[in-house]
């Protein structure tokens, strides 16, 4: 395994090349809506101030964390309960598939209709959007627990609850982490959409405000900050997957 710094630098050369080509291609362009990276980097110092981080970024991260934690906790809980019973799976699958098919961005106006505009709406929209991928992943994996493990639990006279907590859920760790990982992107998307729709706070609102007032470099800075948050969250999950379910990700050959 390469050193951490080596991997980091190795991953960095290609993005740097892309940014360099972008700079070369647009250095003399006068299109105000698609500025070269140098102009955007000049603008970073003006946008990313302690005050901006304390208001926009903090508000976004707060809503994202709250919604994500609530949604994923509910997803794991309900997924585990539903997955351990054949009858519950059959009853809930059509409804879950239907709700899952509704695009997650469409859940924001629905929440606005129910709860009005505010922090609660944004948190609820994110948690509903996160709930389903996590629930489906947990449910499928819990339902497909290795029969031998369950028989072992039966031998040790585990009841339904103990076999769920001690065998089924731990055996599903890998799939649950995959579900949690996939849900991060959904959570980010819903966070940005919910902020763009009239909440007035957060990075998404900042992007729309900059765009509407023709501060195009500010808009690009906002987009880059959202991207950076996405990359950091992704790295956290890659790390967690290696840490908590190494057997699963080794066997899939993705490490």
């Amino acid at each position: 395994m390469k050193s951490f710094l080596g991997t980091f630098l190795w991953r960095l050369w290609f993005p740097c090349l892309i940014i360099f080509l972008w700079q070369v291609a647009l250095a003399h362009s006068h299109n105000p809506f698609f500025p070269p990276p140098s102009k955007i980097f000049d603008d970073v110092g003006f946008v990313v101030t302690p005050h901006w981080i304390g208001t926009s970024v903090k508000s976004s991260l707060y809503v994202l964390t709250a919604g994500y934690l609530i949604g994923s906790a509910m997803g794991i809980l309900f997924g585990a309960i539903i997955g351990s019973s054949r009858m519950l799976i059959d009853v809930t699958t059509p409804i879950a598939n239907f709700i899952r098919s509704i695009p997650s961005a469409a859940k924001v106006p629905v929440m606005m209709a129910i709860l009005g505009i505010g922090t609660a709406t944004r948190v609820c929209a994110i948690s509903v959007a996160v709930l389903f991928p996590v629930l489906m992943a947990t449910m499928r994996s819990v339902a497909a627990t290795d029969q031998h493990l369950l028989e072992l639990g039966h031998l040790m006279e585990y009841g339904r609850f103990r076999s769920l907590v001690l065998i089924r859920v731990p055996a599903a760790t890998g799939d649950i982490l995959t579900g949690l990982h996939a849900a991060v992107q959904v959570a980010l998307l819903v966070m940005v959409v919910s902020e763009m729709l009239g909440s007035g706070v957060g990075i998404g609102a900042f992007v729309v405000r900059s765009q509407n007032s023709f501060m195009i470099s500010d808009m690009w800075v906002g987009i880059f900050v959202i991207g950076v948050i996405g990359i950091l969250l992704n790295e956290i999950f890659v790390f967690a997957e290696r840490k908590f379910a190494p057997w699963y990700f080794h066997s899939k050959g993705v490490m």
Partner: protein
Amino acid sequence: MPLVTKILLVYLPSTISIVGTGLRLSASRAFGTIVAAGIVAGTPGLGSQMFLAESSANYVRTFSYVVVMGIVGTSVYAIFSAIERKFVVWRVTV
């Protein structure tokens, strides 16, 4: 075996099942994105119509658009699952 033949006859066929899954997932995501674009930027379509209904406090219509989106989303998913099952006969999709 020359490289081109190897790519066409070995590498590409062996990826079909995973590519099929990718196509199915990205079709759902494409639908989600066009709805999001409608809601945020007002591109004509289900998303903007739904948000218009929500903004004008017509909540019955908002929810009926949600149901329509569910039907369209499920159909997109079902169509791509069917295509996948047709081409990837050796793998049972969940």
